[in-house]
């Protein structure tokens, strides 16, 4: 990725330019100390003077009123706030008319920022005060006061916190009066500029110590740049939070959100006092110390999938290279390319007006449809369809360009969704809510309606990242998520009636990705690179999960690696310094998944015997139990030396009826309640009681026995035996009550049990057809 800069031969402003701001993707306003406000139109390459301010107004900062206000979107920003050195801020309309001037601070007003919904304005000044103003410029409160000037201020993502500078310190202050303030020393020199992104919640700071740094919202340092030659005078996040720009003397840098730098430009600009990203995130403008306004747009983004490599060579041109035969195709677009995504044999490109869908089989005839609104902020692909997110909503399209659905939930804010907080699979869409970060909304993709009973999935702590698995049956759709403590959890998406368990399968997980062809999960866990070959194993046999993992030392990735893609058996990880690392995992688990999904158990066993790998056998064991194929499970368990389980499976096979077999398989997976329910439904009361007795679940056993008025004596007998074995006395009130006047007669009990088993056998014999097919039932 690179910046292509353009600079006029002669500066339009006579003095240094102090601030710039975009109105649309092609229109920019700049203010300078020569008192001019100039409007730049990039389509016609014109720069016209909008207004000349009075001679005593020296502008310092400008910020356009946010475009989307309370869900309603205006097509264009209508006015902006301009702060000046005489202690005032001015509300100025698009035509350049000063609508209002407000005396705000003693000394210069150094920065002014609207919050995200445009309901409040914050200004900071040389007098060290932070003031909050209403939309019309009425003073609401003085939030804080300190002894040093405040050079820069930024709103938090929810507009409820404010980040500001205090010398070498950064301070996050919530708007509520008594909430806790977060304060930390961030730089060795005075901090000149801060920015806080609403999408990824990361903070940027730049200072006179010639460094720029990236922080998370808890004040943890994620990246610190090397020392530059000159102080860093400006930093700015792109709206989607993927990139940021850094400005210094004769320097313009483009960086990834993790801090490493994509490109460096050394234009002849003097110091860059202010940088602004255009709304679509493709261009930046910089206010230069020598009166210039520099424009730069981002080119040479790359997308790679399997054997295709696509580069955005110019603003409207893409080059597709097929690495296998070196064939090159050029794709031309009518408008500027804003976003693109390449996956599942399709390339989806959004320009400012249209969406193009290319198939990798045919680059010549894309499918084109018009977009409702220009700025697509995210494209997400699944095998059957893809998703576009823009400021107005979430839209699901098929690869034929047909709108499938547009899921919604109350209080949805689409402008802050990113690939971590939204996940798409063939049948399900998951979105993490912003207003309550503990909640995940699940939708059916075909209808756009909430899944199941419409209740969202909720967790006990804040969720950072979610991912849906891509393959397999809809009923078995799984979602994994990382919470605030960096623990990895898995749960089922379908939740009919009973609450599905949310099971923890990893700790200190930095990043994760599902494989695109089978349900294998890859991630970086603490210091280890981990692949969960069969995450579903936790629902089958929890102890088996560690055996189905592939682990590798990940120290070579340094800290904070990110998984870029997990395609086929190739996993690509981006290190914190920006370098890509490609890794190959064994292809066998994927093949195994394929066999199992088509119930080719013989082939699966043969594969495992060929590979002779314990991990693979463990996967097969778990898969077989999940599909209730006990023969395969027995072989697989035997191969990994789990003799106890082989025995148990053997005993299951000897059970007389289908119901008890199923129940015992459920028991095997630890689903005691399900097993009991199944037995009760089948009328096998004694078996249900016996299950509870075996589990020493005495109370429940007695309860069942009493309820069905059978085998009370059996329960009591076993209880008595248990107590005698351990030399204990009965203390349970209910057992004492029932034991009164009941003589335990083992012979009678044994006879009764025999009778029950015979009865079950008889029943099973009556329906032999069913008995023969206890295999897979999806």
């Amino acid at each position: 990725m690179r910046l292509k800069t353009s600079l006029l031969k002669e500066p339009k402003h006579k003095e240094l330019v102090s601030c710039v701001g975009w109105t649309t993707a092609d229109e920019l306003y700049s203010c300078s100390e020569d008192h001019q406000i100039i409007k730049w139109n990039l389509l016609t390459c014109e720069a016209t003077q909008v207004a000349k301010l009075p001679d005593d107004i020296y502008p310092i900062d400008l910020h356009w009123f946010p475009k989307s206000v309370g869900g309603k979107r205006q097509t264009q920003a209508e006015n902006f706030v301009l702060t000046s050195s005489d202690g005032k801020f001015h509300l100025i309309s698009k035509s350049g008319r000063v609508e209002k001037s407000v005396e705000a601070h003693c000394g210069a007003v150094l920065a002014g920022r609207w919050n995200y919904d445009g309901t409040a304005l914050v200004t900071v000044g040389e007098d060290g005060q932070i003031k909050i103003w209403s939309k019309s410029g009425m003073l609401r409160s003085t939030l804080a006061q300190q002894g040093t000037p405040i050079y820069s201020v930024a709103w938090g993502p929810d507009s409820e916190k404010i980040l500001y500078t205090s010398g070498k310190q950064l301070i996050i202050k919530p708007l509520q009066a008594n909430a806790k303030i977060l304060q930390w020393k961030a730089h060795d020199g005075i901090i000149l500029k801060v920015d806080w992104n609403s999408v990824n919640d990361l903070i940027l700071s730049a200072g006179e110590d010639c460094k720029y740094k990236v922080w998370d919202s808890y004040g943890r340092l994620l990246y610190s740049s090397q020392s530059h030659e000159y102080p860093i005078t400006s930093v700015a996040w792109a709206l989607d939070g993927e990139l940021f720009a850094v400005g210094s003397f004769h320097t313009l840098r483009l960086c990834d959100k993790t801090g490493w730098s994509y490109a460096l430009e050394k234009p002849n600009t003097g110091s860059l006092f202010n940088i602004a990203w255009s709304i679509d995130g493709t261009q930046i403008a910089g206010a230069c110390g020598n009166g210039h306004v520099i424009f730069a747009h981002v080119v040479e983004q790359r997308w790679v999938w399997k054997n295709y490599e696509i580069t955005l060579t110019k603003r409207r041109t893409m080059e597709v290279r097929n690495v296998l035969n070196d064939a090159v195709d050029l794709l031309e677009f009518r408008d500027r390319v804003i976003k693109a995504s390449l996956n599942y044999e399709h390339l989806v490109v959004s320009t400012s007006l249209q969406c193009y869908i290319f198939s990798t089989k045919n680059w010549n005839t894309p499918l084109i449809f018009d977009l409702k609104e220009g700025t697509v902020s995210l494209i997400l692909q699944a095998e059957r369809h893809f998703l576009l997110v823009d400021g107005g909503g979430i839209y699901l399209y098929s690869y034929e360009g047909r709108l499938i659905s547009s899921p919604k939930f109350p209080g949805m804010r689409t402008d802050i969704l990113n690939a971590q907080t939204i996940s798409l699979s063939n049948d399900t869409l998951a979105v993490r809510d912003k207003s309550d970060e503990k909640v995940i909304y699940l939708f059916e993709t075909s209808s756009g309606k909430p899944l199941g009973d419409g209740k969202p999935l909720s967790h006990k702590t804040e969720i950072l990242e979610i991912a849906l698995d891509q393959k397999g049956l809809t009923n078995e759709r799984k979602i994994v998520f990382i919470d605030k403590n960096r623990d990895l959890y898995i749960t089922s998406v379908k939740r009919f009636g009973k609450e599905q368990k949310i099971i923890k399968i990893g700790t200190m997980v930095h990043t994760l990705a599902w494989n695109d062809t089978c349900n294998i999960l890859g991630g970086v866990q603490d210091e280890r690179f981990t692949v969960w070959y069969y995450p579903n194993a936790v629902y089958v046999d929890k102890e088996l999960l560690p055996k189905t993992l592939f682990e590798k030392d990940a120290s070579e990735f340094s800290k904070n690696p990110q998984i870029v893609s997990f395609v086929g058996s190739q996993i690509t990880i981006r290190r914190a310094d920006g370098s890509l690392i490609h890794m190959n995992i064994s292809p066998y688990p994927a093949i195994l998944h394929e066999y199992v999904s088509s119930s080719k158990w013989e082939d699966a066993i043969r594969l495992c015997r060929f590979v002779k790998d314990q991990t693979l056998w463990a996967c097969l064991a778990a898969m077989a139990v999940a599909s209730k194929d006990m023969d395969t499970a027995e072989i697989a368990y035997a191969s990994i030396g789990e003799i106890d389980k082989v025995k148990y499976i053997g005993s299951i096979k000897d059970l007389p009826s289908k119901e008890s077999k199923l129940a015992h398989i459920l028991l095997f997976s630890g689903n005691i309640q399900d097993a009991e329910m199944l037995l009760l439904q089948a009328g096998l009361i004694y078996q249900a009681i016996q299950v509870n007795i075996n589990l020493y679940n005495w109370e429940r056993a007695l309860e069942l026995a009493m309820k069905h008025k059978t085998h009370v004596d059996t329960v009591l007998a076993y209880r008595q035996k248990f107590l005698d074995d351990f030399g204990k006395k009965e203390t349970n009130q209910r057992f004492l009550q029932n034991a009164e006047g009941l003589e335990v007669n083992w012979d009678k009990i044994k006879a009764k049990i025999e009778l029950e088993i015979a009865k079950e056998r008889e029943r099973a014999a009556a329906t032999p057809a069913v008995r023969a097919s206890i295999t897979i039932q999806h």
Partner: protein
Amino acid sequence: MAKGILGEAGLHFDELNKLRVLDPEVSQQTVELKDECKAFVDKIAEFKKNVSNFIELVDQQAKAAENEKIKAIGARNLLKSITKQREAQQQQLQALIAEKMTQLERYRVEYETLCKTEVDQNEFIDQFIFQK
């Protein structure tokens, strides 16, 4: 004799026997003096002219010298600033080189991992072929 008498009366005769009030000798000397004076004045005027010419010339020279001097100073300053400029340029290029180096390092790391992948895959293929 008459001459003497007339002389006492203040009258004289010149060679042409014209009657004169002034003694011809004195008169002649006066005339001579007058001529000499005229010649002197002329010479002085010429001298003055020459001197002014000279001054003008010197002034011009001085001006030229001053110009050259300023030029020299300017050139010297330019020289100094060019070294500075070069330094700045060098610094900029160094920064660009450093950037490219980090990019190169990234590519090197990526290349290495790709090589490793290739080795892995070849190994896998070999293993596969031999086992079959």
